[in-house]
């Protein structure tokens, strides 16, 4: 599964790179101002105004002499006008791997050690540059494994037990974003992003209705594909996280940093 996700990510990256059009229009605080005709000097007539040199207004450029000024751009809400987004995200992730003291213990006790489970996140993000998003929020990740498939015994007399891992984390991320459709991403378009994030929070390990409490840290890299139209975003996220888990329970069982993959669907509202 790890390898499949990695290959999928690599293919997606190659695809995105191959199909990427030129980057979105450069950031500017006054794109409309750049296309406005220069203000004629006071007292000059219209004809002389057309040939007059541009007004000495720092930060605002005028069209070169002899070039006809274009009319003001249409009111475009664009990303500049809607820098904020609320994202709700859900998917699946690996919760634990056997290559750790905690995983080996569960495996030894007859549990499966590779716990796959759902994830859910609520995030708020903001464009700080035309190509850069910063965001953060809360996420919940769950994974369970049980002894039902314990192959050590034929007709095992032991009742089936379930081990659950609940992780809640506060997260923050930066996300360089590339518009894959040149010229159309201000209102609607397809975006490709690369996300780097960090998250941390408590972990509950539940077994036989008792919970052991721990702490975890997650460092995450993710690829995103998003389709945005006006105030709605629909996206897909492919992530690979390094997760460290503190010791839990009487034997202080934890994990060193382990690679755990995740996939998510994202739905967002921007304003």
């Amino acid at each position: 599964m790890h390898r499949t996700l990695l290959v999928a990510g690599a293919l997606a990256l190659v695809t995105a790179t191959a199909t990427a059009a030129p980057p979105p229009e450069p950031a500017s605080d006054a794109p409309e101002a750049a296309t406005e005709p220069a203000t004629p000097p006071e007292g000059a007539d219209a004809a002389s105004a057309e040939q007059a040199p541009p007004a000495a207004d720092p930060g605002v450029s005028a069209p070169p002499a002899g070039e006809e000024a274009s009319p003001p751009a249409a009111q475009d809400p664009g990303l500049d006008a809607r820098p904020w987004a609320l994202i709700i995200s859900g998917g699946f992730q690996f919760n634990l791997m056997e290559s750790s003291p905690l995983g080996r213990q569960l495996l030894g006790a007859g549990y499966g050690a590779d716990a796959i489970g759902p994830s859910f996140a609520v995030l708020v993000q903001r464009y700080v540059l035309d190509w850069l998003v910063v965001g953060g929020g809360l996420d919940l990740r769950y994974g369970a494994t049980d002894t039902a498939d314990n192959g050590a015994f034929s007709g095992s007399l032991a009742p089936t037990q379930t081990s659950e891992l609940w992780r809640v984390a506060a997260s923050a991320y930066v996300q360089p974003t590339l518009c894959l459709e040149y010229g159309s991403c201000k209102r609607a378009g397809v975006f490709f992003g690369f996300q780097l994030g960090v998250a941390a929070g408590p972990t509950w390990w539940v077994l036989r209705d008792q919970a052991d409490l721990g702490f975890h840290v997650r460092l995450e890299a993710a690829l995103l594909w998003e389709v945005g139209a006006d105030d709605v975003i629909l996206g897909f996220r492919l992530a690979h996280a390094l997760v460290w888990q503190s010791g839990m329970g009487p034997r202080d069982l934890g994990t060193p940093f382990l690679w755990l993959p995740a996939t998510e669907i994202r739905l967002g509202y921007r304003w």
Partner: protein
Amino acid sequence: MVTRLALTWLVVAATLTAAGCPCDSGLPDLFYDGLQARCGGLPCGWTATAGDVAQVETFHSGERGLRLAVGGAAERDLPEVSLPGAFEQGAVVSLLVACDAQTALVFEVDVTRDVPDQTSGERTPLTLVARREPTPGDSAGGPLLRSVLVLELSSGEDVPPSTATALRVFIDGPGVCTFDELHLAGARSFTCQG
């Protein structure tokens, strides 16, 4: 016609392959004690006979087992568990265990022969022994790992088919042993050879 016949045989073969494995491949489980229930500081059914014996949390606060230290020994009765003989590869003790270095864990199972002795004509009592030897780097505080220990006669003779009636456990060494999830099982796993 030939194609249809071949297809029929193919379906039959696939069906037999899928359905022709009615057995599990694990060891047949004969007796299980999760050591969870608490009766006076020990797992229910157990009695401390020597040293330091206590019911403790093992790898999770919801999971309990038995801890033996300082010459600790404990025992419990068994509900007449039939154990296979040597011609069926005998029986094993399977458990989760962690011991300190230089500390062995020993199980003794009291049994009676299922078949009367040829010379005396009696169903004589016997004691089967299973011993977990310490391994370098062991620590009673580490993860509890699954061990499978063969039950043997200390004389080295073949184990006869028998019925187990009681079980004793003690440590041999200076350290501590903790164990959990105790099974008695047949040593021959079923295989799917038809």
